[in-house]
């Protein structure tokens, strides 16, 4: 979709949502709630992608991540019935605090680096391809420049499917 007017407002809301629910995801004890928080975060990210002129990716994100992967998570969580797992206190303070420190430090450094990073060739002028042709362009790229990666990926998916099947298959019976 073309960038909405009031981009900034949308961005602010979306980012608040995303970050807030990401934090919630971490804080939550019950896995199911974490999953749900993550879903919201993903929606925020989807909005970002739309703003960044990648609607296809946005929908893909909702479709694949929110729609499939996280549902799979939910399915597994419910299957193993992890909801009621007693959330006892973390008996490793060092790990805890160091972890926090590491996360914050890395986040700080990365964002700093990202900000400092020279903007690649500055902003391009509004490009030539009309938005409607985004998907055909992606398709063409997939089957030209990225063909090898694409094929490899398809093979990877096949292997993953087989592997998952074998792993979760009970022996005997």
């Amino acid at each position, binding site marked *: *979709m073309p960038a909405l007017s009031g981009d900034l407002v949308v961005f602010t809301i979306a980012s608040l949502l995303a970050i807030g629910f990401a934090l919630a995801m971490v804080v939550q004890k*019950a896995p*199911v*709630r974490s999953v*749900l928080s993550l*879903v919201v975060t993903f929606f925020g990210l989807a909005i970002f992608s739309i703003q960044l002129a990648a*609607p*296809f990716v946005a*929908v*893909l994100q*909702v*479709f694949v991540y*929110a*729609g*499939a992967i996280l*549902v*799979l998570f*939910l*399915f597994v969580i*419910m*299957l193993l*019935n992890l*909801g009621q797992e007693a959330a006892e206190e973390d008996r490793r303070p060092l790990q805890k605090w160091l972890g926090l420190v590491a996360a914050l430090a890395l986040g700080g450094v990365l964002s700093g680096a990202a900000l400092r990073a020279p903007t690649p060739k500055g902003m391009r002028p509004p490009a030539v391809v009309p*938005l*409607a042709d*985004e*998907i055909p362009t992606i398709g063409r790229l997939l089957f030209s420049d990225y063909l090898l990666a694409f094929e490899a990926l398809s093979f990877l998916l096949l292997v993953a499917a087989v592997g998952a099947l074998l792993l979760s298959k009970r022996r005997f019976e």
Partner: protein
Amino acid sequence: MSPTLSAALEGAGKIAFVWGVVLAAMLPNLIWMERRVAGLIQDRPGPNRVGPFGLLQAFADVLKMFMKEDVVPLYADRVLHTLAPFILLVPSLTTFAVIPFGSKVPLFGREIPLVIADVNIGILYVFALASVGVYGLVLAGWASNNKFALMGGIRSSAQVISYELSMGLAAIATLMAAGSLRLVRVVEYQAGGTFLGFLPRWNCLTQPLGCVIFIVAAFAETNRVPFDLPEAEAELVAGYHTEYSGFRFGAFFMAEYLNLVASSMMMATLYFGGWSLPFLPSSGLLGGLLSIAVFFAKTMFFVFLFMWVRWTLPRFRFDQLMDLGWKALLPLSLLNLLWTGALILLKVI
């Protein structure tokens, strides 16, 4: 009148129209219709007391539902328990946004395309929403903290994931034919030509296999008989909405019918030429209105199909469901892809 404002007005108008038709006109009558059809099939009158032919039965039911007490189990996860029905409801309400319900009507001196939002990723949007919808069921099942409900949730999640695949693969074939993800384009494509010279180029004719797969998968996605395992009364009391009552239950009820309508519309759009009908003018004011009529007629037919099936077929067992999804539909949908590709390469369509 500034273009943005008029655009906004136009959008609002379409939304109002679609929701009006679906919620106000269709939904209540569907409830009534289902029970009448049941009666018809089971050779009994069905509701016929409230109002003429019992037409007002639905309103009575809704009223009753809203009167009832809204119970939340003690050990349930309150937030999610409250949220679940609406998580289910929202996507099913927003699905209609991209479905073209008519060709075009000239109004106030401008051609108004009869679709709320003609986005270039239309069908993906529909699938995305459909896949999000499942959260409602799953959460309902989990939040109730009730083993039957949980079972229902697990089942629905597994079921939806499994059938999304074959559904999507089947739909992709239609996109291949139309060469676009935009549903408007898909319909125009079907309306635009002939198949083998004399047949309308509807996808149900060019790729019958895909059509069947899509319909079956749609049944599973909407948890309708014969795939209504998440709420299989015989095994799970009432499945995911066991612990729901009052208007929340109503919400589930409503969402189910909304999904019913939505998927019927999708069938009509993807495989049965949407609003188009051979030898029928689709341009001009009259044509536009006719096209709308045609579209909803087709939709109603599929709704009836849903009900018909529901009251005639027995329910699957869960492993049978999975086998069907993974071992039958998935390979067949791949086959259908091949078939369609061949047709396209051979310039047959």
